[in-house]
Every structure is written in structure tokens, then in C-alpha cells.
């Protein structure tokens, strides 16, 4: 990965934030960083961040944060241009890293959706799929989550400013639950929880509020999704619930997608 400081006497590195198909929640995480945002503002020049300011500077940018997925032909072109203007490109959030919740359209009938939702679908110009940024351009680093974790986002920017390669944990959410003293909701209550196959970073947020993890940080490295689904099926979870559990904010992430598809195929066969 390139570094944003190439010489000591250069002026402040330029930071840009670009939005594609998304809810703006990840950009809000940056705005919510409060005092850290002030320090970031001192360390970098915020050159392009429409959510925060209408002041826009042209590229090239030293560090670009990209939120959102690619869902239109226009965005498919625009991301190429963003890449060209960016020395370090980091995707932030589930949309940018895996296509987001809107990737559910990848399993649906695009035409039918358009007809159902819009009175004049002929004005739309969209793609049939929602895809990750890395499906279109080279990505230097991915920050997971829906939304991203504020602390990780600040740490990422700090790392890049200090010429460190960001290294976030790739292990399961379970470590964070145990470290923070959260008792396992799957074991004590039988709540389906994707924590064991989902990458840490949220701090075990949902189980801390008595809910199962729904995988918004995406799969762990070498996630054994079928290992979990076998167990859940054996414990009476119907496939009709298991498939939607996997097809959620990270439906497009390969391990979740493949196991979801496998279960859906089995379900179809069983119905026949």
C-alpha cells in the first residue's frame, strides 16, 4: 500500500470521501468522531466530503474513502475516475466491501422491482446487480461494518497518516463478546447468532443487547459457514429462516453468498 506522506515538507495530505449507493451511515460515523474529527481536520485537508461541506477541491487525493456499492452504469464509470484520482483507496462499510443490503437485488428480478416501485421506470438507469467496489477497481484496504466502527475508522486514518499498514482483527466477534463479558446468546438462549463466523470490530454490539449477530462486519477469514448452518439446521432452524440470516447486509460476501445459495438450492429441491 502506498503512503500518503512522501516527503517531509509537503503540505497536508488531501482526504476525499465519495459516496455510491449507500445510506450515508458510514460517512456519519466519521462525522460522529467528534474530537477525533477535529484532530483529523488538523492533520489532513478535507478536499472532498459532500456530507460535511460543499467546498470541493479537485484531485488527486492522498487518501480516498469510498462508501456505497455500484448499482448504476454511471457509478460504474465514476468509480474508475475516483480510483485514478486516489493514491490510497479505502472502502468503508458493508455496501462498499460486499454490495450491502441492496445486493439482495442480485437474487431478484430487477425489471419487476422497477415496475413495482416506480410509476415511471423508464426514467431509471440502473444495473441489475449491486456489487462491491473491489469488483470494479483495485482497493487498498477494506473497512467492514454496517456502519463502520467509528474507532476503527479513526484508527485507519491515523494509521495511514503515520505510514502504518492498518491491521484490524480478522477473528470472530466471539472474542469481543468474551472479552467484554457478554454471555453467549446462542448457547444460553438458542438465538441464531452469526458471531462465530463474523469478523470482529463492532465490540460484540448486538449480543451485548441480547440479540444475535447478523453479520454486518462480514465473514471472518476462512469462515466455516456450513459448519454453523449444519448446527442450526440440526437444532430445528428452518432453511426459510437460515437463508435470510445469511442474505443480509453482507449477502454478497462470498462465504455467506455461497452457503446461502447452497441452502436455497436444497430448499428448492425439497419443495419440488
Amino acid at each position: 500500500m502506498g503512503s500518503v506522506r512522501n516527503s517531509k515538507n509537503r503540505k497536508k495530505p488531501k482526504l476525499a470521501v465519495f459516496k455510491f449507493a449507500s445510506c450515508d451511515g458510514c460517512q456519519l460515523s466519521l462525522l460522529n468522531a467528534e474530537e477525533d474529527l477535529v484532530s483529523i481536520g488538523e492533520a489532513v485537508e478535507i478536499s472532498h466530503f459532500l456530507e460535511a461541506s460543499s467546498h470541493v477541491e479537485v484531485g488527486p487525493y492522498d487518501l480516498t474513502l469510498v462508501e456505497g456499492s455500484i448499482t448504476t452504469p454511471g457509478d460504474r464509470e465514476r468509480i474508475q475516475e475516483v480510483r485514478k484520482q486516489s493514491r490510497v483507496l479505502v472502502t468503508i462499510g458493508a455496501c462498499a466491501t460486499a454490495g450491502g443490503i441492496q445486493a439482495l437485488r442480485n437474487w431478484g428480478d430487477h425489471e419487476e422491482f422497477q415496475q413495482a416501485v416506480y410509476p415511471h421506470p423508464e426514467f431509471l438507469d440502473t444495473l441489475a446487480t449491486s456489487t462491491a467496489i473491489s469488483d470494479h477497481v483495485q482497493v487498498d484496504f477494506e473497512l467492514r461494518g454496517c456502519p463502520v466502527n467509528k474507532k476503527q475508522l479513526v484508527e485507519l486514518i491515523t494509521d495511514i497518516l503515520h505510514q502504518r499498514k492498518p491491521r484490524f482483527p480478522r477473528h470472530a466477534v466471539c472474542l469481543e463478546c468474551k472479552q467484554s463479558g457478554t454471555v453467549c446468546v446462542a448457547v444460553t438462549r438458542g438465538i441464531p447468532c452469526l458471531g462465530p463466523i463474523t469478523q470482529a470490530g463492532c465490540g460484540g454490539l448486538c449480543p451485548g443487547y441480547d440479540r444475535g449477530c447478523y453479520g454486518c462486519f462480514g465473514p471472518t477469514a476462512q469462515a466455516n459457514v456450513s459448519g454453523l448452518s449444519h448446527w442450526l439446521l440440526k437444532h430445528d432452524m428452518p432453511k426459510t429462516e437460515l437463508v435470510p440470516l445469511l442474505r443480509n447486509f453482507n449477502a454478497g460476501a462470498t462465504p455467506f453468498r455461497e452457503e446461502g445459495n447452497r441452502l436455497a438450492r436444497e430448499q428448492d429441491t425439497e419443495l419440488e
Partner: protein
Amino acid sequence: MPAESLREKTVSPWQIHPVRIVAAKAEVPGVITYRLKFVDQNVEDAYSVSPGQFNMLYMPGYGESAISVSGYDEQNRELLQTVRVAGNVTRALSRLNVGDELGLRGPFGQGWPMKAAQGGHLVLIAGGLGFAPIRSAIEAAICHRGRYEKISILAGARSPDQLLYREQYEQWKAAQVELRLTVDRATPQWNGNVGVVPLLVDRLKISNPATATVMVCGPEVMMWYTVKSAIEQNISVERIWLSMERNMNCAIGHCGHCQFGPAFICKDGPVLRYDRIASYLKIKGL
């Protein structure tokens, strides 16, 4: 054990000491040898290191990296540490200048059995960056040249320009040390051996295998074949020593990262006797 002395002075094994970069020499592309000196003289007085041990070098904000000691200049009380620029810590270190300070904990681990090797043929074998810990054994052996019947250094690198410590070679030879080098890929100027390190072992004349000692450091696969060759030369498995590498995080046997079968590389190693780990070297992903 040399680490004792430092332990008495500092209660916590987590205590880091500042060291200053006295000199930095680019060895080959991406590899730098630093001369480091303790800032605090009390720490320096208490510090004592054996060949083959390692230190944890600390770059504040980046973390620690385990680096084997390549030598200790007793006269100037300066540590020699050869570092390959690879991760966050070593990259940050490479951006420092002479006069800058960083942190250090150490020394840690079990070094080369210099004493047990006395009286016989000492065969020091290095592959690539494995030369770094071997160099500390070379310096120690030359310092007490008379204790070893014969000293041979067998070293290999990918290409001639990747060989470390080239400016030392004449000095070593002058101390009646046999030096044999090999490279994987020769250049037109190269007139030494071409091929893997174990071939040098096959061709080596060992005066008396019963008293010879082999010390090896290099990539695991290179060590594996080197040991095979050494065994074929009738050297007993109890006289073959390897310096192993694993992810050393705490350096004191408390964090579990560097386990290799039953061994904690940080405290039982990095130098381990071959026969004690032979059965584990064969297992993939251990």
C-alpha cells in the same frame, strides 16, 4: 543465564529501554544493520547477551519486532542488529536516522551452544537473512579462535548481491576461518558456487564428525535439507542446532504465539537441538 542480570534491575519483563542508533548500514536492498547503544548507562552495565539470543525492538506506535542479535561490540558496548524491512515496525525503523531513539527489551531466549562446541570442528551454516544470528556465533568463535579445531562458514543467498556482511569476509578468513559461499543465481562476476546450501555441506571435509558441531539458520526447508546432509556426514543429531523462527510477541513465554510443538521458540529457543524437534519439523502447519 545472561538475562538474569537485567531482570534484577527491572521488575517487569515489559519494561522497554531506550536505545540510540549509532550507525545504520544498508547491507543489501531492504536489509539494514544497525548499531544500537543504550541511552541509560545502568541498563547498559546490566546488559549481557549471548550469541544467538534476540531482542525485541520497539517502535512506539508501531509495536515490537523480534530481531536476533548479530553481534555485540564489547569495546563500544554497541549492539548489532540486522533487520529486514518487512512489516510496520521494521518499515518505521527504517525511516529513523542516526541519533534517533527507539525502544528495546531483551535479550531473550537460548543462544548457540558455543561452549559445547569447543574442541571440535565448528560448522556455521546460514541461508539468506539466517546469516544474522549466525554472525553472532562467528564473532564469538573468532574471539576465542583457539577453542575450536576448525571453523567453517557455509552461507548461501539468492544472488551474489544478496549475501550479507561481505565486508567482513576477508577479516574472517584472516582469522583462519574457512568460508564457502553459494548462490541460487550467479552473475557474470561470480566465481563461487552455484546451488543450494546443503550442497556445500555435502562437499565439506569434516575432520572428526564425532566432535563436530553444526549450527544452522535459514528458511525451514533449507535447514531441513542441510540437516539431512549433515547427518550423511555422520554428524550426530545431538550436535546439530537450528535457530527457529515463529511469531514472537511477548518474548517471555506468556503469550503463546511462538509455539512450535512443545517448544516456545522465544524461551526454549530460538536455538534448538535438532533431535528435540525433528519429529515436529515434518508436520505441516504445526
